[in-house]
């Protein structure tokens, strides 16, 4: 529905400025667009394309490769239940069935109030803490049906707003490179060895 707002456009340009080639900023910018809108609209992708110097089709090609980008609105909370081996061995099928029942939606569905979207996910790097799930990618370890119910309650009532922002916001802390400390991207036609490397040692 929208292009970047002014603040995000400034941020987008700052992010682009960190890379030797603008196109490298594609994924960070898509995240930023998703943060602004909750999902990726065609206009947002076209704007990203414009900013990184790719065609919109190329940006769509990149975006659609990655699981985290959503092209339709999803719930405020995206619940991802891991179903890969360790979690499956730890009972994730049962957890998923319970979640479907509690939320009243099937995998892939969004609750009528627009709060929850339920997905079945792959390994979340928490295999010792099975079964594991994520809410907007925040890990929830060793889930039980009771923990799940409590979590859903907490989310509904806003008690978790402090640590789980709405879908789209990934990290609440961004990297900031102070201008005076920044080296800047290494130009690709800068063919010389860096200053601290004595010429005789090149090749390491």
């Amino acid at each position: 529905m929208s292009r970047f707002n002014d603040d995000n456009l400034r941020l987008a340009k700052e992010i682009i400025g960190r890379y030797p080639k603008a196109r490298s900023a594609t994924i960070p910018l898509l995240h930023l667009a998703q943060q602004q809108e909750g999902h990726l609209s065609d206009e947002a992708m076209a704007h990203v394309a414009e900013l990184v110097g790719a065609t919109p089709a190329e940006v769509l090609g990149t975006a659609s490769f990655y699981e985290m980008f959503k092209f339709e609105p999803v719930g405020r909370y995206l619940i991802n239940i891991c179903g890969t081996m360790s979690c499956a061995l730890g009972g994730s099928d049962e957890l998923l069935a319970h979640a479907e029942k509690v939320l009243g939606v099937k995998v892939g569905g969004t609750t009528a109030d627009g709060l929850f979207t339920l997905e079945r996910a792959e390994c979340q790097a928490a295999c010792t803490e099975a079964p594991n799930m994520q809410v907007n990618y925040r890990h929830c370890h060793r889930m039980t049906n009771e923990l799940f119910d409590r979590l859903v309650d907490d989310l509904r009532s806003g008690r978790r707003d402090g640590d789980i922002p709405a879908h789209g916001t990934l990290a609440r802390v961004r990297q900031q490179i102070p201008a005076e400390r920044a080296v800047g991207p290494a130009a690709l036609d800068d063919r010389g060895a860096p200053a601290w490397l004595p010429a005789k040692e090149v090749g390491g």
Partner: protein
Amino acid sequence: MSSYRWAAGYIDDGDRPKIVTSRFHLEDSYTLERYLATGGYQALRHALARTPAEVHDEVRGATVLGRGGAGFPAGTKWGLMPADKYPRYLVVNGDESEPGTYKDRLLMELDPHQLIEGSLIAAYAVGLAQVFLYIRGEMPLAHERVATALNEAYVAGYVGKNILGTDFSVDIVLHWGAGAYVVGEETALIESLEGKRGEPRLKPPYFPAAIGLYGQPTIVNNVETLSNLPWIMANGAAEYVRIGTETSPGTRMVAVSGHVERPGVFEIVNGTTTFRDLIYGDDFCRGIRNGNQLKAFVPGGGSAPWFTAEQLDLPFEGKLVGAAGSMLGSGAIMVMDHTTDIPAAALTLTRFYAHESCGQCTPCREGGTWLERVLQRVVDGRGTSADLAQMKEIGTSICPGEFPHASSSRHGLDATPFPYKMTTICFVGPSAYAPVHSALTLFPEEFAARVRDRVQIPVTAVQ
């Protein structure tokens, strides 16, 4: 947080040397203040006091085997970059997504400065122009911790222009992924970092050391690999190789999950610790849950062929495990007890790799899904014995020739050692077949029963 625990899963009982997890017990381990108070950035100072070549030699001397899966020594890898070609880049691989693997996330969440310092040491040693720290998208906490650490480190003068007042200057740029397992493969990681679809590049001719990011020489190293460097610079390679074995020095982080009494992430001594120690040891997992029997385990992440109790006494050492028909991969052990439905367990992995195929090469794109569908049918009790044969045929189309597997006295089988031949570009295709092949080879009776009896049982019988 109700369901998130501090350093979840990390267990440091026992008297084990700690190289990368030494701060994990501290609540504020991730802050600059704590890092500095515990010797942080001293290794960088040591490094800067020496020539880049000396630093590189020190790392080479430590033989730090890559922890991302391939196990290639870091110092040697750095040396593969063509001389005189600049700029050179480092891409830190923080895309941890191999099934069973859980360590890099902890290292980023709990000790981000250690990773930053390791990256700086690498940058100094081989003259890198820029470092990109690629963190898996589904890890916002790691992202926040690393971002905070970088912000602190920039201000404090550890990163950026004229680091610690020297002429060593390098930026570390935090980059986020967006959810695609295959991007962990180093050339796919580079493609992704270039803003493209994360499709692995063909090798040859594109080994990243020579032609990497933007076509320039590029090192890709795993988070854990780099996290070892501050210790090595501070204590010396000689100290490092004193731990572990000659071929596998130092320590490594291993996650043991599944049906064990106490699943956890451990920093173990490399090369000597056995699977039996890990699964049954008191300092480790303390045996199979509920006193059950071990049925099988995956020794090195979801891509690895399976072991059974017969391989328990093998040490965590790459060559030995390879000869026994599997691989160590990314330090991930998944344990199945006797209640496990083997075809269903295999399906959770095959489905993973089929789902995560990038889709560029035919055998993986088509073969992975085909395998998944046939296996699903078998698991659902709708399979036939022709389906079992067909799975092997599909597997042969992905991996012509013999596929590695463990020995099994039950079936009178000798081990077929690693590696395999493959028709695919990367290992995702073969990985979809590995669990099927292991399950069919080591537990043919479970499949036979399934196609005969057409029964359906859940993945895990809840105890």
